[in-house]
């Protein structure tokens, strides 16, 4: 699927969401009802009964066919030779971890409760914090918001998170209202919209955090191979690294237990300023996909990608 097709598919999703009555759209899997319900549950459910509540709702969300099939197809590529029944149960584990992660994230926003943190590869994290301006490249794993808050607290740098906007307008408004105040969030809707702002932010010593495992509609992309399947990854972080001459720091936030997260920092990826841009990008993308594969292979139950990551898996 190329960028235009993906854009058309996303537009189709928006259209179908708009066709539903506003009341029905609230209960869509990406609708605002579930965000409100999660917030209510995090505030009101006794903490010691949370595992049972999360186990139940994770099972209920297995009824979400497209999400379940997306995860199972991705798992079939991550774990070659795995059976559908095994991947069904693995899918439950992905949903279970996702539920915990979003619950921890809401708890942090509402009550400022933070989890325990473990650091792996701390020297790379220190190098990022010591550098004047950097790109933090991560994946849809663990809690992106909690991680960004941790970096904002410990590094003293300005953190700018780049993410795709919510499809549902009510959900988008809800998330905007309830996001952590100290984090700056930029929504990546068009390839060229943010580039200059982000470049200035890096040159001013800020850290730009981008999720580099998925491309959304309208975003410039680069070809890659992930678990032996053709995939498209966002070109933005690599172009930004080349333009700003800042290193890319692959950092993953992994949930390793109840209210316990691990920050896995890997050696930085450099994108040299070169006449042969294609070759420089290809080398950087290869280094990034190698890191991404290693982390996803180890923590497959933490990769919250609910659509097939490759057209070959669709």
């Amino acid at each position: 699927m190329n960028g235009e097709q993906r854009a058309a598919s996303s537009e189709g999703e928006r259209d179908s969401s708009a066709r539903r009555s506003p009341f029905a759209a609230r209960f869509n899997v990406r609708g605002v009802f579930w965000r409100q319900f999660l917030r209510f549950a995090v505030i009101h459910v006794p903490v010691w009964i949370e595992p049972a509540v999360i186990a139940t709702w994770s099972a209920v969300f297995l009824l979400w066919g497209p999400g379940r099939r997306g995860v199972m197809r991705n798992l079939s590529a991550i774990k070659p030779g795995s059976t559908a029944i095994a991947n069904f149960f693995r899918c439950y584990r992905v949903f279970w971890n996702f539920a915990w992660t979003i619950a921890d994230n809401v708890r942090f926003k509402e009550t400022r409760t933070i989890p325990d943190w473990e650091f792996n590869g701390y020297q790379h994290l220190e190098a990022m914090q010591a550098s004047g301006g950097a790109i933090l490249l991560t994946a849809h794993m663990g809690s992106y918001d909690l991680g960004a808050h941790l970096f904002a607290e410990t590094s003293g740098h300005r953190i700018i998170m780049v993410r795709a906007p919510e499809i549902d307008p009510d959900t988008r408004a809800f998330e905007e209202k309830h996001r952590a105040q100290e984090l700056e969030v930029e929504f990546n809707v068009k390839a060229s919209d943010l580039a200059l702002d982000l470049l200035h932010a890096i040159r001013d010593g800020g850290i730009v955090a981008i999720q580099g495992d998925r491309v959304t509609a309208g975003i410039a992309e680069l070809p890659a191979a992930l678990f032996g399947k053709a995939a498209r990854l966002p070109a933005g972080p690599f172009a930004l690294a080349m333009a700003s001459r800042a290193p890319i720091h692959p950092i993953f936030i992994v949930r390793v237990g109840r209210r316990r997260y691990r920050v896995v920092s890997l050696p930085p990826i450099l994108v040299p300023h070169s006449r042969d841009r294609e070759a420089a990008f290809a080398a950087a993308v290869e280094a990034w996909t190698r890191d991404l594969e290693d982390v996803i292979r180890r923590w497959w139950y933490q990769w919250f990608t609910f659509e097939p990551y490759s057209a070959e898996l669709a």
Partner: protein
Amino acid sequence: MEIVRDDPNARWLPSRHRFALAKLVARFVLSRTEREAPRAPGIDRLLLAIDRDQSALETYSVCIWFCATTILYIAAVLPVPFRLAIFLAIPLAALAIEIPIYLLGNSFVLMLLLFAASLYFVTTSGPAFYIALFSLTLFVTNWTARLVNAICGI
């Protein structure tokens, strides 16, 4: 929020536990740990948050006890053979636990309901009697632990 840096033993701080019995056990374990506990392999730094709901062991233990007890109590009142009743009681228990949460949303109310159910089932015969006895023992032990904690300043 308070944070302890690079001290794995801080996991056992009583202030990271909610229930009196768990606080008392944590205090006992903490008193028996090595002064300099090694960090887990591959972990360079560690930040432990001080919050009374931070203990996974405590949370999962209480949750399993509460759910298993509720399942057995529901199975005990179902008019079907016990093995089938256990099977049917699992989804019913999920509802029985969640409905009071969304209506009353209170830890105290949930525990009070279980305590009342235990008082009832301890007067019956069959497996529910033993579970009720165990649950009431836990309640009494927790109250005793609360008293000990208050006296010892834990």
